[in-house]
């Protein structure tokens, strides 16, 4: 800021009396006594102290050199050995500690220098209102007026309005090109790999599961047959088709009439994808028959059609209707009869 504007600012501070709003300006308030007297440091008073502080600063800087050099040494002396976790640990630790102290010592040294050896008397500097001086403001308005007059921005309505239109339209091509970021999902969210006769197989190796394998109290993490061999979209299919298979005492299953034949001798299969936001609901409690989602703690009652008993989820987990094929393997009767996973706006709309 130039000297001229400084002197102007002084005058202007007095000139602008801003509203104090609801602040009470007491005429009799205690007056600011001004800055406290400066307290003299030991390093200012005693040469011995000053010399010691200077030595400390230099020692810190020297220590920094040693530390950084140690980091270099560590880089070569503690290489990473193939397959050895401990070597990675040593490399990380020693290289890091060397570099860390190399920097810490510089920092501590510089601050110590500033605190003990540089002047520590606080100084005061004038501060001005942020707004420009009246003269500056007048000149600014003048420039805008002049620009307006010279360009005819206010006067030439047609030009102005057509420019607004052009500015409103020009970003649209830039936005529309993002439409190809992904396809319209269509009904892809409503179908999974499961269909009539698909065998239930073990996650991850795809080994088919016999009904007799599923003993009471056990839980199987299941993928549809053929998923493990998929060349493309394996994870996308898995993200919809993952199923949890559990056998309970058939007498404790509360099954509605329409779902009576969806289970097999107490074996039930439910989608593992939470109806809240899609985490795998994989925690099965054998005694309470509750399924718990580890992400947001939605809890489902497996014996009661996976009704939500706790947590933020709103809908039960979809059930996969299952049966047993001629060889005794568990198979799906059909796909899920509703979309799996998190809710979305058109999930109940049928095309």
């Amino acid at each position: 800021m130039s000297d001229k504007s400084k002197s102007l600012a002084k005058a202007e501070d007095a000139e602008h009396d801003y509203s104090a709003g609801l602040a009470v300006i007491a005429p009799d308030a205690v007056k600011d006594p001004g800055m406290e007297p400066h307290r003299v440091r030991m390093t200012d008073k005693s040469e011995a102290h000053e010399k010691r502080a200077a030595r400390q600063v230099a020692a810190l800087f020297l220590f920094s050199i040693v530390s950084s050099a140690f980091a270099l040494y560590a880089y070569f002396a503690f290489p990473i050995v193939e397959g050895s976790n401990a070597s990675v640990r040593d490399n990380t630790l020693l290289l890091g500690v060397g570099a860390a102290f190399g920097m810490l010592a510089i920092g501590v040294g510089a601050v110590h220098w500033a605190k003990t050896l540089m002047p520590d008397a606080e100084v005061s500097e004038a501060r001005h209102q942020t707004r420009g001086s009246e003269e500056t403001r007048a000149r600014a308005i003048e420039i805008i007026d002049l620009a307006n007059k010279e360009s005819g921005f206010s006067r030439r309505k047609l030009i102005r309005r057509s420019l607004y239109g052009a500015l409103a339209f020009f970003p649209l091509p830039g936005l529309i090109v993002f439409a190809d970021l992904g396809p319209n999902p269509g009904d892809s969210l409503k179908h999974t790999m499961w269909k009539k006769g698909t065998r239930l197989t073990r996650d991850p190796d795809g080994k088919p599961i016999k009904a007799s394998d599923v003993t009471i109290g056990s839980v199987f993490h299941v993928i549809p047959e053929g998923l493990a061999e998929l060349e493309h979209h394996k994870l996308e299919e898995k993200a919809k088709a993952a199923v949890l298979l559990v056998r309970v005492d058939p007498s404790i299953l509360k099954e509605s009439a329409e779902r009576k034949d969806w289970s097999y001798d107490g074996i039930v299969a439910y989608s593992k994808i939470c109806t809240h936001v899609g985490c795998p609901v994989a925690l099965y409690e054998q005694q309470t028959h509750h399924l718990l989602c580890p992400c947001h703690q939605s809890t489902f009652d497996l014996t009661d059609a996976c009704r939500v008993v706790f947590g933020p989820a709103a809908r039960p987990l979809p059930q996969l209707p299952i049966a047993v094929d001629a060889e005794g393997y568990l198979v799906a009767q059909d796909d899920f009869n509703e979309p799996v996973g998190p809710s979305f706006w058109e999930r109940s709309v049928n095309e």
Partner: protein
Amino acid sequence: MSNATATDNKKGGFLAGTANYLDERVGVAGILKEFGRKVFPDHWSFMLGEVALYSFLVLLLSGTFLTFWFQPSMVPVIYEGSYAPLKGAEMSIAYASTLDISFEIRGGLLFRQVHHWSALLFVAAAGLHMLRVFFTGAFRKPREINWVVGFVLFVLGMAGGFTGYSLPDDLLSGNGLRIIDGMIKGIPYIGAYTSSLLFGGEFPGEAIVARLYSLHIMIVPALILVFVAVHLFMVVIHKHTHYAGPGKRDDNVVGYPLMPVYVAKAGGFFFIVFGVIMLIAATFTINPIWAYGAYDPSPVSAGTQPDWYIGWLDGALRLAPTHMEYMIGDFTLSLNILIPLVVGILFLVIVALYPFLEAWVTGDKREHHVLDRPRNTPVRTGIGAAGITFYAVLWAGASTDLIATHFQVSLNHVLTSMQILLIVGPIAAYMITKRACLSLMRKDREIALHGRETGRVVRLPHGEYIEVHEPMDEYELYKLVGYKAYEPMLARPNAKGVITLRSRIRAVLSRFYFEDRVVPPTKGEIAAAHDHGKELH
């Protein structure tokens, strides 16, 4: 350096020569003249923003190092690296290259950890800095816009963190993306399509890591840099605030000159912050991706949580009540997702707009460069405490499972308590904090009027015992009484004689802010109290 001018070149050796060279080409002398002795106030709490800035510099440095090896591709490969329990596993190139950075490159794991720790520190320091600014009223005119700039930086910090968290494509971050996918799908009408746009089709797809990578290394850091520049530019324009105290006024700034003291302190502090991050990175594991395995939609680990700064949103999801999903005709409205989203956004909007709200209520149009002591603004401090409590409950809500196992209490009870605490906690925090502030102000007033208690009890000639109160020196006294009280405003009719709704609301808010207040004693009151004390003696 500053004595180097265009005319006296070739004198004073190399340094002066260089200075001369630079001045004749970029006018460095003028810059130094203007800024070289600029005064910066010194207080520990003024360094918090610097911590954030320096963490960001560390992020840029360590992040650049990581980009030399990281490959943002989700094409599956078989891992052949040196971490034994994953050898032969199928995984994405992104995950494999992150493992290679960790296990094949000397210093690679160190820099991954430097990067991640400094990311956590960046957002934490920015948050603490915001709290300092809030509680001291540093956001008041003329700094309202800079508050918003800082707020945007905080949000950008979260965005940078989130886009980075998802890059290694491990099980933990993959499940994090799964949650984001679920949240997006829950947005009415556009949810499913938006998710498809983001993931390039169905979740997880093969596009998301590369897309987040572009955002993470280009757009987000570029925006942060721009906003940091604006933020600092405004600090230069306004000059830094200073704490209330003797000699500190709205028309001056008291502190140390930039050169040499502040350069040494702030420059040294950069090395200290970097050194601390480096030390932590060398000794403490962060995000051990090798332990989580490659992303697969079927498995999940107990304790699946986002990094801390996203935790409050995750907590909001957890605390939503059960069965909040409704059908509108054939369409599904997921309030269990929308409510947390809206509450989160609303909270952020209130934070961003608070300075304007308070300015309207106080009607104060003056510039403020002297900071408030938090106790002297009991309602603002109370509101701040309520906001912290609200945020903290949501944040703690994201670790209900860990709270349950660590304190051996029921997970369900923890969640239910959090739901209650989310409502009750902020109100209680507000009331307690406000009362505490008022008590502290009363105590200050008492001390200002009667002096400090010395603990010395004397017996007066006529037999009375009194405790001797030591009068305060004028500097100490000013620290206690050098603030302004505000009075509540009444709803007044305007020129047309009508009391508008606007003015009624303003009156209600004004009463809420300033009904309970402790006025600083005036000179007269202090003198009277002093005389009274003398009479007693």
